[in-house]
């Protein structure tokens, strides 16, 4: 028996039952499309989180007050006030693995410029902060250490702030704004950064010298965090160690006691978020696999029903000379065709859905070749696996019994 003839036989049988063929295929289409879309969403968020973490700056090390547990009570990071400007300065002068260092304090503030007003966040930092976080200036300049010493009323603003106060494409350099009624001179405009993974607008910010914010706006000696950056990527762990040792000494923490601060490196963060997004991807993929499995069971169900429904047809085929192998191959071709075509259409739909999620939902998505190959193989296996049993059943029918079947 020529395989070409069996292709003709299978094609005729599928095209005579277009609706049945389509409904069977639908299960696979939905399964494959959801695998593609869900893996794309998972992969997209993963890449996005990684990008956000690296946008924190290369080789960055963050020191936050507080510890994970204090006397058995779980504390939120930053809830304690144990870090000071002097800690930051000490790290800068004593830890040779640290390149940039800056204490960070932040506060919300009402900004007024002429008749416009805007509420945003104001950061107080050292000039090093810009380097540690890879923040670049579009126009104007960054403030200097001298301006920090003098608690000068100067600031660098983000694009969102500029747009809201001065309008689109305006040049804010040299303008004076009132931050909580204190007049500040704008000396720099930051490059656009866009939203981060968590949907925060990173351009809605004002950065001023640390001493200015600390003394003129907050009047506190504590800092919210200290931002550092290691000399090289290889020295990140060394920097973390040096900082920990130094702060333990400065804070007079005894050997057996817990730190009253936390040091987190960029790789700590990417590990945390990496494992979160891995869990997310696995979760999404398993939901999608279940729908693919359901699609496969759909194929088996319809193929089984059609073996029963088509018993007489099989009997006729056997009576005119079909061998059981011919019937087996015909049914296999039918289910493979259904799952392959369903797989192709599903891939197209999956990519379409991913693009729609990206365009209308604003979610980051990334369709990978891996997910396409995976879901295609999966649908092929589903077709073979779930097509086999009904095909065997059809092939093993006895011609006389099949013909007599009512």
């Amino acid at each position, binding site marked *: *028996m*020529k395989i*070409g*003839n*069996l292709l*003709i*036989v299978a094609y*005729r049988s599928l095209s*005579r039952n277009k609706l049945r063929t389509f409904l069977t295929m639908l299960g696979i289409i939905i399964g494959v499309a959801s695998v593609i879309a869900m893996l794309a969403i998972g992969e997209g968020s993963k890449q996005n989180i990684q990008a956000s973490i690296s946008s924190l700056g290369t080789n960055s090390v963050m020191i936050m007050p507080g510890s994970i547990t204090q006397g058995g009570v779980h504390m939120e990071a930053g809830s304690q006030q144990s870090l000071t400007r002097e800690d930051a300065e000490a790290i800068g002068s004593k830890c040779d693995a640290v390149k940039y260092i800056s204490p960070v304090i932040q506060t919300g503030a009402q900004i007024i410029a002429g008749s416009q007003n805007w509420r945003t966040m104001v950061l107080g930092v050292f000039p090093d902060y810009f380097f540690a976080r890879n923040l670049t200036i579009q126009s104007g300049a960054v403030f200097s250490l001298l301006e920090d010493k003098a608690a000068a009323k100067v600031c660098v603003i983000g694009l969102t702030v500029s747009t809201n106060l001065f309008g689109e494409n305006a040049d804010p350099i040299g303008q004076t704004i009132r931050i909580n009624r204190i007049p500040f001179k704008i000396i720099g405009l930051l490059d656009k950064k866009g939203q981060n993974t968590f949907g925060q607008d990173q351009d809605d910010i004002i950065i001023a010298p640390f001493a200015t914010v600390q003394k003129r706006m907050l009047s506190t000696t504590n800092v919210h965090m200290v931002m550092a950056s290691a000399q090289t990527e290889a020295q990140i762990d060394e920097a973390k160690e040096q900082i920990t040792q130094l702060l333990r000494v400065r804070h007079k923490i005894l050997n057996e006691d817990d730190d009253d601060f936390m040091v987190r490196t960029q790789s700590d963060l990417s590990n945390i978020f990496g494992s979160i997004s891995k869990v997310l991807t696995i979760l999404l993929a398993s939901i999608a696999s279940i729908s693919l499995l359901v699609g496969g069971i759909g194929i088996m169900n319809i193929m089984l029903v059609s073996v029963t429904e088509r018993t*007489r*047809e099989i*009997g*006729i*085929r*056997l*009576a*005119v*000379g*079909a*061998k*059981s*192998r*011919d019937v087996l191959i015909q049914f296999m071709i039918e289910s493979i065709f259904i799952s392959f075509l369903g797989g192709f259409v599903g891939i197209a739909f999956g990519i379409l859905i991913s693009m729609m999620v990206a365009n209308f939902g604003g979610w980051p998505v990334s369709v990978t070749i891996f997910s396409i190959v995976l879901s295609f193989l999966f649908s092929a296996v589903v077709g073979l696996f779930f097509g086999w049993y009904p095909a065997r059943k059809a092939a093993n029918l*006895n*011609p*006389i019994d099949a*013909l007599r079947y009512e």
Partner: protein
Amino acid sequence: MSDLLISVKNICKIYGMGEIEVHALSDVSIDINKGEFIAIMGASGSGKSTFMNIIGCLDRPSKGTFFLDGADVNKLDKNQLAEFRNKKIGFIFQSFNILARTSALENVELPLLYNSSVTNKDRKERAYQALRSVGLGERQYSLPNQLSGGQQQRVAIARALVNEPIVIMADEPTGNLDSRTSYEIMEIFQNLNNKGITIVMVTHEPDIAQFALSNIIFKDGKIIANSPVKDRKFATKELDIIKKQTIVKATA
């Protein structure tokens, strides 16, 4: 002995269902030569279909030997049986058994699709010629539900003929047809038989049996009579008479 086509010796068929055993055939022996046209008669349940299915290679006997065209059929495996059904035997059923939602031409093509020695081009041509030989050349694209019972049976005959079998087995081929259509089928059978094709046909209508060359009678799974037909009827003649009668009726 080169004329011997079917040789059946002492075949039995027992349908066993636990305690109850049905002896559908007991000790049936018969030789059928090439070129014969046999009508098998007998009461319902006398084993006619069982016999036909066995000599049509659709079923196997419980006991006994069966030679078809010189081959010991008992020794053939499933695939070889399928090949026999495909190339040597044309089977025609009472209930037509043609594929629904499938054109007449595609139905006739079916046996050729399972015959690897037929090319794609030949297949269509041969199927069309077979349809033409039963007078359905114009209906090749018609679906079964667009055809009358007689036309559907003719599609089935064309399908049986398309692989040029040496024997046609027909189990009550006219059972679902009116007498005039039955005569048309008999006309086709007689023409085929004149060309040398052997025909074995089951019928319970004595007048249909008279178109054959000889009659066999089954009773309780045994052959009780085997005799040549005395006043053989010729379908072409009978149809002429019917036509004249209808013309007379129409003019009256």
